[in-house]
């Protein structure tokens, strides 16, 4: 299928998705002053978004060296153009107090290397309702619990993509969920991934998770517990409070018995199969503290600091760097270039952690909301190696249209871990039309 044809199909699909909303709005308009009581039973909304993402690959680091030795050994991230259509729907079910909710996404992607594809996925699809004083949900659902912005240790059902250059709608997890709400407290019990194998890795691991929430005046308190089929127990606690008109503070802590991690090779330098393997770590913990200050001029400053016990240690990274250097050094001893390139490409697995790159992290974000415009500047700093990821963005929000653009770049010493990432510069523009 040619790309032009794919594009036409996607636009047609988007228009078809948008059409029912017009009917729903017309029906609502006929109801006039009846207002929301006259809202259509089937609720539809969504957006179509076009994105152009430019990416520049690293000129240093194991991936760059591997591709110089043997072009094409390690796959690089090309620039892409995306067209996404997202539809949100909600409708009553035949049983009293029960509804169906869903979010689907259809995407066409065109890469700068000429390849393209069309994919679709279900972000959410679940039935929800209330009975016996509890709220129930069954299906694929987004469950986000923690209080932080750039790091959320207690999102124990699913981890959001943090500090995404362009935020996307999350894809939920298969859950069975029960919640009870009182005036100032709430219980939530989740059975996540109930149909998955007990040996599945962490994102798909079957698990039971519990949250207790309590509000005391200006402070929200949360207590969490989780039991995973493989990773076993973890417990956590968090709070968010507003001590003054302008300041919000929050903190989150979690201790875990085990977590999935990618273990580096310890054997011979040149091997014939990927030596990086997932394994269970030992006991550890994660801690986040942060706050947001906002003034009357609509300037907002967010600052967060965290310790992530699931991230590689200083010794892990030292071993990684030593292995990279040793692999490159093998060329001088007559090792085949393709073998060295392949093993260097496997070293990129070490950067593929689901969580932070370093254990200690500092994050700041400054933004200013002025009418429809919102410029922002943020930086993630890793004190261990003085690496910095800096992002500048500008957004304009209209009635239905949102325009966004931004740049992200890695800075720091040449041996800083962020400088080894396969993409060192990113820029994007996006147009979103909501319906």
């Amino acid at each position, binding site marked *: 299928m040619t790309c032009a044809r794919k594009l036409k199909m996607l636009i047609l699909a988007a228009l078809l998705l948008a059409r029912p909303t017009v009917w729903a709005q017309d029906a609502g308009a006929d109801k006039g002053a009846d207002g929301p009581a006259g809202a259509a039973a089937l609720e539809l909304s969504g957006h179509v978004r076009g994105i152009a993402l430019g990416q520049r690959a690293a000129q240093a680091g194991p991936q760059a060296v591997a591709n110089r030795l043997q072009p094409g050994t390690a796959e690089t991230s090309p620039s892409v153009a995306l067209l996404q259509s997202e539809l949100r729907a909600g409708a009553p079910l035949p049983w009293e107090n029960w509804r169906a909710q869903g979010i689907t996404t259809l995407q066409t992607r065109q890469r700068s290397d000429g390849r393209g594809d069309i994919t679709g996925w279900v972000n959410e699809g679940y039935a929800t309702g209330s009975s016996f004083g509890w709220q129930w949900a069954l299906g694929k659902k*987004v469950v986000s619990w923690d209080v932080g912005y750039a790091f959320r240790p207690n999102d124990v059902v699913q981890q959001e993509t943090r500090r995404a250059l362009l935020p996307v709608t999350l894809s939920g997890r298969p859950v069975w969920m029960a919640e009870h709400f009182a005036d100032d407290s709430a219980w939530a019990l989740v059975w996540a991934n109930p149909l998955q194998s007990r040996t599945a890795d962490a994102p798909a691991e079957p698990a039971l998770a519990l949250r207790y929430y309590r509000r005391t005046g200006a402070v929200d308190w949360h207590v969490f517990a989780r039991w995973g089929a493989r990773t076993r127990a973890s417990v956590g606690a968090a709070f968010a409070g507003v001590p003054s008109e302008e300041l919000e503070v929050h903190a989150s802590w979690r201790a875990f018995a085990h977590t999935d991690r990618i273990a580096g090779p310890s054997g011979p330098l040149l091997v014939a199969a990927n030596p990086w393997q997932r394994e269970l770590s030992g006991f550890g913990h994660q801690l986040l503290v942060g706050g947001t200050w906002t003034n009357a001029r609509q300037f907002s400053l967010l600052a967060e600091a965290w310790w992530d016990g699931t991230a590689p240690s200083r010794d892990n990274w030292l071993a990684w760097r030593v292995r990279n250097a040793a692999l490159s050094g093998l060329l001088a001893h007559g090792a085949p270039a393709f073998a060295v390139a392949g093993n260097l490409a496997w070293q990129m697995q070490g950067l593929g952690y689901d969580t932070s790159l370093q254990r200690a992290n500092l994050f700041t974000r400054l933004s200013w909301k002025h009418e429809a415009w919102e410029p922002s500047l943020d930086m993630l700093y890793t004190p261990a190696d003085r690496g910095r990821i800096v992002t500048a963005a500008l957004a304009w929000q209209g009635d239905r249209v949102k325009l966004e653009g931004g740049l992200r770049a890695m800075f720091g010493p040449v041996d800083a871990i962020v400088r080894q990432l396969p993409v060192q510069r990113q820029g994007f523009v996006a147009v979103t039309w909501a319906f």
Partner: protein
Amino acid sequence: MRYVTHFLIAIYAAFVIPNAANGQDVQGLLRAADQYRVPSDNLEVETLVESHRADGSVDKRKRYIVFVQTGRKSLVLMQSPGEKGQKVLMLGDDFWLLMPSSQRPMRITPMQKLLGEASTGDIASMSWAGDYSGRLVGEEPCASDTMPVAAGGPTVCQRLSLQAARKGVTYQHIELWLSRDHHEPVRADLYVQSDKLAKQARFVMDRASAPTQVDEMVLIDHLGNDKQTIIRYLGRKQRTVPAEWLNPMFLSQNPALD
């Protein structure tokens, strides 16, 4: 000693008793004025907010459904395409925001609640009694140089100078003009914590001569670039929402509005 006692009683009679009576009068006036926007304790209000450009043309149009409940509790559901799924919960002095992309209720500060041409506080807070205390300054012409009164509207107003009685209110200080005859709100100067004039408001009633309810609130934003925003109250009806809707953790649910 007897002279001292008489002196203290005289002081009390001269200053404290009139001020207490004045305070009671102010609360009575505020309750009367509130009835024009919130005629019932538990309400569902459909609101349309229009932001205007300098030339008067409409820049943005946003719809909200607001559930105003007893105990200073409000739930705001954003209905416009660009904001659909966003929710703000206000429980007294505490506020939460839910963005649909994250499905995570977040604590926000009173200052974050203030953001925008028409802040969430402008939309969700519809009463002054209990939230503000103050004094009756006196009678003044309703119109000012910058805020004219609608044709047929009241000409003589009672001016109230109000100070926030709670920390979570949208504005720290309000100068409020109520009509002398019916006590409906006519106009207001709204000041933020730094005592800066944030906005000026003008109230448009359903009937100028015998008003029963506020149809529109016109806001001039002085912290921005003097843009005009009109908040139209499209529909009000009595509605008590289930108690769990007012729990912050319930914001991630999508209950049916019917």
